[in-house]
């Protein structure tokens, strides 16, 4: 089962009741599979075949407000088209859960993976989980529903998976029993905002400056609460399904003096490279960020406080910023540590370019060199896999 199939399976297990999805590469198989489930009767849901992603999210908002579990999935420019309504879903505190298949944003057009689409939505007030493989896609979606719907949280959630590297890469996925999932995820019970003729309220009206700040504060508090809730839910998930998850996953970090921070499918490749380098005597490790919103600064600080040299691999460009968005947040999380670790940023894997073992190894070599004092660390993110002729790739004949 690939990541897309795992996402559809998770939504079926979550017994979603309204599905509104619009096809986009590489998300389309999710939209197709959910349509199949509804057609064959294995999922009792209303499938709304929408005409855009903007409508997909709008339908989900309307449906969720009536008290049903709504879901959708998207990718790239589709997510960007949703941007406006993502804020409505989160501002109205609707626990909509969405699968996001990470794909680059235009322009340039690209069908392939990077994280710029979901990173552009990192402040949209949604929870964000990043899955490394199809099993995590399924598991994080189930966890996301529980966390999102918790009355202490009430936030929508995105579960992000790398386009093709996870979405289209088959792997063995353990699919839990419906009964167990039902006990983990009871029917949706809306307690906050809803649309009910028998108990009417007017949702999402104009809010004056005297209240707006407070509503944003409530939203911020929800993210703080989410830390507690995510921990509880992951604990219960382990009890029922025997798979343990946390905000971050550390791989051979305990004795490491060089650690690379990763997100999504690159984490696996990084672990592989760690094993290769360890065989050669280097004490290296990987820290994978699972939950990006809320950002687990404390967990990252605790896990890395003993590590002198840290690298962060961003699969997005962070245009105009000092470095990639993950690097900025990790650097911030580690600042103030005594002694202060060196935190080097890398940008790579854009527009479907593979973060292949040799690219990750290059990043590790760079960090090892910094550790050994062979090179100085440069502030900001280093573009790890850019061609030397970057500025000359479109040459035209000029009459001189």
């Amino acid at each position: 089962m690939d990541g897309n199939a795992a996402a559809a399976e998770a939504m079926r297990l979550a017994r979603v009741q309204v599905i509104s999805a619009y096809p986009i590469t590489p998300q389309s198989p999710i939209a197709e599979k959910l349509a199949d489930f509804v057609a064959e009767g294995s999922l009792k849901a209303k499938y709304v075949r929408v005409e855009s992603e903007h409508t997909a999210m709008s339908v989900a908002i309307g449906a969720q407000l009536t008290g049903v579990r709504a879901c959708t999935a998207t990718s790239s420019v589709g997510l960007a088209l949703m941007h406006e309504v993502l804020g409505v879903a989160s501002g109205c505190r609707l626990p909509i859960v969405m699968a996001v298949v990470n794909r680059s944003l235009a322009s340039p057009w690209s069908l392939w993976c990077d994280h710029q689409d979901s990173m552009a939505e990192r402040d949209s007030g949604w929870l964000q989980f990043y899955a490394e493989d199809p099993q995590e896609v399924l598991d994080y979606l189930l966890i996301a529903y529980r966390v999102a719907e918790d009355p202490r949280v009430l936030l929508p959630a995105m579960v992000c998976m790398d386009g093709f590297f996870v979405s289209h890469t088959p792997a063995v996925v353990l699919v839990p029993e419906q009964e167990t999932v039902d006990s983990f995820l009871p029917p949706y019970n809306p307690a906050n905002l809803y649309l009910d003729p028998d108990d009417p309220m007017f949702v999402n009206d104009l809010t004056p400056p005297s209240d707006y700040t407070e509503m944003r504060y409530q939203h911020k508090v929800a993210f703080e609460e989410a830390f507690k809730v995510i921990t509880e839910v992951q604990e219960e998930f382990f009890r029922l399904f025997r798979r343990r998850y946390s905000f971050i996953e550390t791989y051979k970090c305990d004795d490491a003096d060089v650690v690379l921070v990763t997100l999504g499918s690159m984490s696996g490749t990084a672990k592989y490279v760690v094993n290769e380098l360890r065989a050669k005597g280097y004490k290296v490790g990987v820290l994978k960020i699972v939950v990006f919103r809320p950002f687990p600064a404390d967990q990252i600080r605790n896990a890395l406080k003993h590590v002198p040299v840290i690298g962060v691999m961003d699969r997005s460009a962070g245009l105009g910023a000092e470095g990639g968005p993950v690097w900025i947040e990790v650097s911030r999380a580690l600042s103030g540590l005594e002694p202060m670790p060196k935190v080097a940023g890398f940008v790579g894997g854009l527009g479907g370019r593979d973060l292949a073992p040799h690219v990750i190894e290059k990043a590790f070599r760079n960090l090892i060199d910094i550790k050994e004092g062979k090179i100085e660390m440069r502030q900001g993110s280093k573009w790890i896999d850019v061609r030397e002729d970057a500025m000359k790739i479109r040459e035209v004949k000029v009459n001189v």
Partner: protein
Amino acid sequence: MRPSESFPKVKYLYGPVATIFASTKTGSWRILRPVIQQEKCTRCGTCAKHCPLDVIEVDRGNKEKEVVIDFEYCKGCGICANVCPRKCIEMVPERGVK
């Protein structure tokens, strides 16, 4: 099951929502005030039907009962005077009229 039966009551709602049914006292906007000639009026109800604020009370066909306007809300737009088939509503300046 009605949705409301499944909704547990909570004391505080989070996010933008209005839970109070209220009104603006638009009567203070009025510059012109409709004055009805009750004797001439047939109680046809045309004014009430077209009042954007729905603040004209007419007991249709009942000449005994006076037509009443709620001046707490009446903005004085003059639509009632304009639509009256018998032209028995007059718009007079608000000030100087009791």
